[in-house]
């Protein structure tokens, strides 16, 4: 699937968001080159979602600017931005029985004028997006009655149907099973688009992102290649956990193992590809 538009350069310039007297995002600057995939990590409440919301025009920054190819996203018509930047949000419950097809078809809206119907191209794009995310069989099912993982995949399909050169994804792997987590992130890579992905799973972030940006208390504490950023020291500081980082023997990606505290501590593997060996090691379930 080749997107219509070329990957954009996304840039946050000293973005701050203050809401209800609290500073949620504090002077964050971030440069994402065209076709680069940047992982946004950090503990709960670090400001990941808030920062992303300023990118897709859901929340105006209190100060600072968000630029796409040098253009302030808050100074262009929303529709024009939506043709170049798509967002995958965390799903919200709806009261209306939209079908999966209806939801994915919404992705075509920014490309349409009033009274303009879906043409063959739109239908092809919608079908392709449904297929890419493995939800074609659910096309006629009501969105509200899907499982969390299925909903998440449908929302990714909607962003795909938007055919943009830039993607903003807010924890797209939430609720997804192992296979679909990998599939979704692989898909983002394969699209060759610029992407900013908020992720909780550090090993996934390390495996799929060119660079990682660590947020803590609304500020950027580190940005760089996964191997350079994800260090035991940083993890201890940001997450308050004792972790070991090793290079994965087969992928070369940093592999993080969090050690649960106490003298009888047993390693808890976060790595999904290789369960820890030993008598107590978890067996693969699939």
């Amino acid at each position, binding site marked *: 699937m080749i997107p219509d538009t070329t990957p954009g350069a996304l840039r946050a310039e000293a973005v701050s968001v203050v809401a209800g007297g609290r500073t949620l995002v504090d002077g964050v600057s971030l440069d994402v080159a065209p076709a680069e995939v940047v992982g946004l990590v950090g503990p709960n409440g670090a400001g990941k979602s808030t920062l992303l919301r300023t990118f897709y*025009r859901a929340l105006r920054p209190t100060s600072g600017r968000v630029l796409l190819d040098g253009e302030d996203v808050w100074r262009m018509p929303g529709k024009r931005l939506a043709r170049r930047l798509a967002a995958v949000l965390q799903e919200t419950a709806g*009261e*209306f029985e939209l079908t999966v097809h*209806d939801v994915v078809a*919404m992705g075509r809206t920014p490309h349409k004028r*009033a009274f303009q119907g879906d043409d063959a191209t739109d239908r092809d794009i919608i079908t392709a997006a449904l297929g890419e995310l493995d939800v074609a069989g659910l096309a006629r099912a009501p969105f509200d009655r899907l499982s969390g993982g299925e909903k998440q995949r449908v929302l990714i399909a909607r962003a795909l149907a938007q055919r943009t050169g830039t993607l903003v994804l807010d924890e797209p792997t939430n609720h997804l099973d192992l*296979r679909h987590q990998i599939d979704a992130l692989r898909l983002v890579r394969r699209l060759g688009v610029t992407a900013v992905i908020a992720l909780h799973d550090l090993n996934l972030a390390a495996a799929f992102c060119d660079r990682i940006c660590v947020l803590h208390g609304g500020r950027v504490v580190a940005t760089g290649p996964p191997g350079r950023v994800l260090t035991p020291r940083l993890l201890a500081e940001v997450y308050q956990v004792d972790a070991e980082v090793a290079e994965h023997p087969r992928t070369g990606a940093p592999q993080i193992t969090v050690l649960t505290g106490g003298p009888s501590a047993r390693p808890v593997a976060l790595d999904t590809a290789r369960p820890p060996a030993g008598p107590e090691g978890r067996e693969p379930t*699939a």
Partner: protein
Amino acid sequence: MTGLTEATGEVTGRAGPEAARHHGIPYLPVLVLLGALVLVAATAGIAAGSIRIPADQVWGILLHRLHPALAEPTWSPVRETIVIDVRLPRVLLCGVVGAGLAVCGMALQALVRNPLADPMLLGVSSGATVGAVLVVVFNLTLFGMFSLPLAAFCGALAALVAVYFLARSGGRMTTVRLVLAGVAMAEVLSAVASFLVVTSDDPHKTQAALRWMLGGLAGTTWTVVWIPAAAVLLGTAVLLGVCRPLNLLLAGEEAAAALGLDVHRFRAALFTLVALMIGTIVAVSGSIGFVGLIMPHVVRLLVGADHRRALPAAALLGAAFLITADLAARTLITPEEIPVGILTALVGGPFFLWLMRRKAAR
């Protein structure tokens, strides 16, 4: 690998019955059927009354009026007068009001993203009622025939704007706050309207205003049809043009913004449009409840929630429903007439409760 196959199997199995329920009925036949329903209801509405006129004669008269060559006149001039000047305008107005209420209900439900929204629930109808009652009670005729609809529009818009800003305090508007503000506003405005009517000294006026507050279409003449007809026709055309943005709102404010919609501006514009439609409707028919609540739900069950499919169907179903309801209101206890608002509430309330229970059970 077996795990994956199993997962896919389960997924497809679940999609099966849902698919049948949602798109088992093709769209075009549904639309044609609803159109036929409107015509049948209209024919029955014109035929029934103190003087019964057979259906073929009804159509003969109508076609003859359209073009003299289309039908040979075999009827008395009195019958022609009854059809053309008495019953046709009333049936047309019923259709216009029913379609308008259904379409406005559907738009409001999307705008506030709440399936319980209705022109009455958000205080729009009550606002329009206050505006219109003011005109009736104080004999305000500054704008001639436009006084009543204009006052009703102002009332409706004022109520909606007040509700909007009450709900928006703090920069953001939540659906819960909006609906609560709407309900409170509706109560207050209804009380104001009642107060105005009760304290009005002229018993004749009180009688007229009260009857009109219950919702009724008695005594409709051609002169009152044009304004609401134009407003509903234009309003519906505009709504059909914004079906896609309306769909986006169903996905939530955040998603709508991400898909390029300026949510606040769009909502403000459509609130004004809906207030305009409801104002002109309430000015001629009074508050007729439940049409705007029930019709959208029935239509969504039939053709799904996509507004491109649902809006035209809602207009047709609303028209057919109100024409039928008015027919019943005229004929059930002849020679007396029941205000049609009472009938729609009697039919609509239980239907809605049944719908809710059904939804909860699934």
